[in-house]
C-alpha cells in the first residue's frame, strides 16, 4: 500500500500536461482550487474559455496546446475531448462524472441562481428547460465524445467515442465519491494533501425527492446516453478504488474527516458500526494527516522566524555602525553586534547618565542580552548540526547549552525588572 507520498518534485515543463475536462456542475471549481494549490498558481493552471458560452474555446485550447508555454501544467475548463486538438503524446486526461439526474437538476438551479443574481427570473421550469434544450441533452457524453452537435440529440456513436475517451483518462472521478476521487487524483498525479472546500454550489436547489416526477422522467429521457456513460464510469471507478488495496475506503474516510475539520484535532466520532481495528486505523490515519499539516505549518513558521532574526541582526549592525561613527570614546569593537551595542553603551551612558545605577543596569542588560543571543545561536547551530549528523554523545552538550540559554534569559528578565524598579524610584 502506498497511501501517502512525499510532496512530489517541483512540477517542471518536462512533466506531462494534465487536461481536466470539466463537465458543468461536477465540482470543477472546487477542483480548480486544489489544482491552483498543487501547481503554484494561475500561470500553470489555465482556465480555458467555456465552450458552451464562447465559440472560440476550441481555437483557444488548440492554440495553447500547440504552443505550450513552459510553465503550463494544467489545462481545464468547460472544454470538450476534441479529436483535432494536438494533445501532447503524454497528456493525462481526467474528468469527473455525476449522476445525470443530479447533474441536470443542479445545472438548472445554478442557471436560475445566475438569473436571480442578474435581477431577473428564469421564465421556464426544470422540465421545460430539459425538453426545450435550455440544458443540453447528454452533456457528459457530448463533452467526453468531443462532439457537440447543435439542434439534435447525441447519438450512440458519440456514446461509444465518449467511452473510448474515458478509457484514455488517467483518472475518472465521480461527484458522488468526491473524497475517493481526490485521493485517486492525488495518487495518480503525486499531489500532497488535496484538501478542498465546496465551491460554486447552487443555493436554491431542492433535493431530488422534492422534484416533480415528470421532470425526472424528462431528464432520464433526454439523458439516456449519459446514464449509460455514467454506469460505465462507475464500473471503472470501482475498479480503480479496488486496485488501491483492501483498506482504501478507510483511508478515504480518514481524508474526509480531516478535510471536514480543517486540520482541527481529530474530533470525528467513532463509528459504532465499525470494527474496532478499522476505527483505530482511521483514527491513526487522521492523526498522521493532521501531523503532516502541522509539520508543514511549523516548518513555514520557522522559515519566517529565521528571516526575521536575520533582518534584526542586520538592523542592529546598521545601528551599531552609526553609533561607532560618532564615538564618544574610543573602544575596542567586538565582532558581535549585540556586544558592540553593549560596549558602546557602557562607554557612554555611564558617564552621561546622572543615575549611575540605571546606566549600569542598561549596560548589564545589553551584555546579558548579548550572552543570551549568543547562547541561543549556539543552541540553534548545534541542533541543526545534530539534525544533520545525529550524535547521542553531544545531545547532553545540547541540553546543557539550552539550560544556560534559559538562565541567560532569566538574567535578562531580572535586569529588566530591576530597570523598571529604578525608573519607578527615579520618577517618584
Amino acid at each position: 500500500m502506498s497511501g501517502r507520498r512525499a510532496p512530489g518534485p517541483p512540477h517542471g515543463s518536462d512533466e506531462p500536461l494534465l487536461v481536466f475536462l470539466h463537465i458543468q456542475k461536477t465540482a470543477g471549481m472546487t477542483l480548480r482550487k486544489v489544482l491552483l494549490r498543487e501547481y503554484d498558481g494561475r500561470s500553470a493552471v489555465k482556465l480555458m474559455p467555456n465552450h458552451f458560452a464562447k465559440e472560440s474555446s476550441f481555437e483557444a485550447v488548440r492554440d495553447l496546446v500547440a504552443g505550450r508555454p513552459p510553465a503550463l501544467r494544467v489545462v481545464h475548463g468547460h472544454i470538450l475531448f476534441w479529436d483535432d486538438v494536438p494533445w501532447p503524446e503524454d497528456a493525462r486526461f481526467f474528468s469527473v462524472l455525476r449522476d445525470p439526474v443530479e447533474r441536470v437538476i443542479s445545472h438548472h438551479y445554478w442557471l436560475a441562481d445566475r438569473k436571480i443574481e442578474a435581477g431577473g427570473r428564469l421564465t421556464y421550469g426544470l422540465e421545460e428547460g430539459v425538453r426545450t434544450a435550455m440544458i443540453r441533452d447528454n452533456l457528459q457524453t457530448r463533452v467526453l465524445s468531443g462532439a457537440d452537435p447543435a439542434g439534435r440529440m447525441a447519438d450512440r456513436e458519440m456514446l461509444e467515442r465518449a467511452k473510448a475517451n474515458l478509457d484514455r483518462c488517467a483518472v475518472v472521478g465521480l461527484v458522488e465519491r468526491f473524497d475517493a476521487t481526490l485521493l485517486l487524483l492525488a495518487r495518480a498525479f503525486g499531489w500532497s494533501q488535496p484538501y478542498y472546500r465546496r465551491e460554486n454550489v447552487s443555493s436554491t436547489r431542492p433535493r431530488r425527492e422534492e422534484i416533480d416526477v415528470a421532470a425526472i422522467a424528462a431528464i432520464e429521457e433526454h439523458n439516456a446516453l449519459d446514464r449509460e456513460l455514467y454506469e460505465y464510469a462507475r464500473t471503472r471507478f470501482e475498479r480503480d478504488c479496488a486496485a488501491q488495496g483492501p483498506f482504501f475506503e478507510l483511508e478515504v474516510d480518514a481524508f474526509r474527516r480531516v478535510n471536514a475539520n480543517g486540520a482541527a484535532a481529530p474530533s470525528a466520532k467513532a463509528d459504532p458500526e465499525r470494527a474496532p481495528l478499522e476505527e483505530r486505523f482511521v483514527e491513526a490515519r487522521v492523526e498522521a494527516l493532521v501531523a503532516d499539516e502541522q509539520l508543514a505549518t511549523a516548518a513555514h513558521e520557522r522559515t519566517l522566524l529565521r528571516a526575521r532574526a536575520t533582518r534584526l541582526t542586520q538592523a542592529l549592525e546598521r545601528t551599531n555602525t552609526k553609533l561607532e561613527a560618532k564615538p564618544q570614546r574610543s573602544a575596542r569593537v567586538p565582532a558581535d553586534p549585540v556586544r558592540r551595542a553593549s560596549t558602546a553603551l557602557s562607554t557612554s551612558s555611564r558617564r552621561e547618565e546622572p543615575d549611575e545605577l540605571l546606566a549600569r543596569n542598561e549596560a548589564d542588560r545589553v551584555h546579558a542580552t548579548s550572552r543570551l543571543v549568543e547562547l541561543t545561536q549556539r543552541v540553534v547551530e548545534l541542533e541543526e548540526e545534530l539534525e544533520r549528523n545525529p550524535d547521542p554523545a553531544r545531545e547532553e552538550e545540547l541540553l546543557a547549552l539550552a539550560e544556560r540559554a534559559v538562565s541567560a534569559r532569566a538574567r535578562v528578565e531580572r535586569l529588566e525588572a530591576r530597570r523598571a524598579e529604578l525608573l519607578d524610584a527615579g520618577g517618584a
Partner: protein
Amino acid sequence: VTEPRRKRGPSEPPIVFLHVPKTAGTTLHAVLVDNVPYGTARSGGNVFRGRGGYDPQRLARRRELERGLRAGDRVVSGHLPYTVKVAFPEDARYVTMLRDPVDRLLSHYHAVSRRRRLKSPGDPLEPETTIDDLIEQHVLFDNLHVRMLSDAEDPAGPVTEDHLRQAKHNLKEFTAFGLVDRFDESLVLLGRRLGLRSLLAPSQRVNVERPGVDEPAVVAAARRHNELDVKLYRYASRLFARAVADEGPDFALDLEALRAARGTDELAVDGVGADDLRSLVVAERARVLRRQQALAHLRARQGLLKRQIGGLEDALAIAEAELERRRSAGAGERGRLARLLVPSEEPPVA
C-alpha cells in the same frame, strides 16, 4: 487549513516528575520536555549533592510554598522526594520511575565511583570504599525509593515499615509510574495517562563504564540495604501489571507502534506488504509518533528562535535609544552654538 489547537489547554495541571536517581529519569524528562511548549519544562532542582549525599537545605528551599512552580511551568522534574508536594498545586500530576532496587543501588554506586575517579584521577575510589561505607557517609542511601516516595520528613532519617506503607499508598495516588525494566511499556502507559504525543526522545546518559557483572559480595550488600525497597518494588510491579491490563487491547498496539517507530525496520512503519489491518494500524501509529517527534523538534527550534528574536529586539531598542539620545544631545549642542553665533531677538529663556 488552520493550525489545530493542541489537545491540552494551558490550564491542564502541571506534571511533577519525582526522579529517583538512576532510573532512566533523564530520558523520561527529555520525553516530557518534548510534550510541552518550549520553555515550560524545568529541572526543578536536586536535593542530592553532585558527588552523592543529600542536602537538607535544598529540600527545605524546595518545599517552601510558591517556590515549586513558576508561572507557565508545565513540567517540573528533579531528584525530589514526594514531600515537595506542599510546594505544588493540589491538582499537580505526579509521576515517577522505579527500578529493581539492587540494580539501582549498584548503578548509583558505579556512577558515584566514576564521578569520583573523574574528579580526582590520581585517587581512584579506594577498593575498600564499599557500598556500606558510602551509605555510612550518606553519599549513597539504602531504600532510596521508599525514602523519596514516602512521607518521610527527613529523607535521610531512618526508614521503617511505616514509610514503606506510605510509599505504597502514594504510588497508588500518582497519575502514573513506570518501571525501568519495562521501559517501553512505561513510556506507553505514561503517554496514555498524561496525554503525551511525542515518545521518541533518545535514551540519555547510560553509564558506559559500569562493569558487566558485579562481585557477589557487592550485590549482597546492595540487597541488604534495600529490604524495604524490594518490597515496594514487588508491590509496584503488581500495580504496574494491573495498570497495563486496565488499558485494554489498545495498549499492545501502542507498544508495537512505539517499537516500530524507534526501530530501523522501515517496512514496519510503511506498512508495506502488510495485508492485515492490525499491522497497518501499528504502522500508522508509528508514523504518527515519528511525525509528533519531528513536530516537537521544530517547535523547540521555533521557541529558541523566538527568544533569539526577543534578545535582538531588546538590543536594537537599546542601541536605537542610545543613538537618539546622542542625536538630541548633538542637536542641543548645535543649537547652543547657533544661539551664540546668531543672537536671538527673544531674550533667552532661563
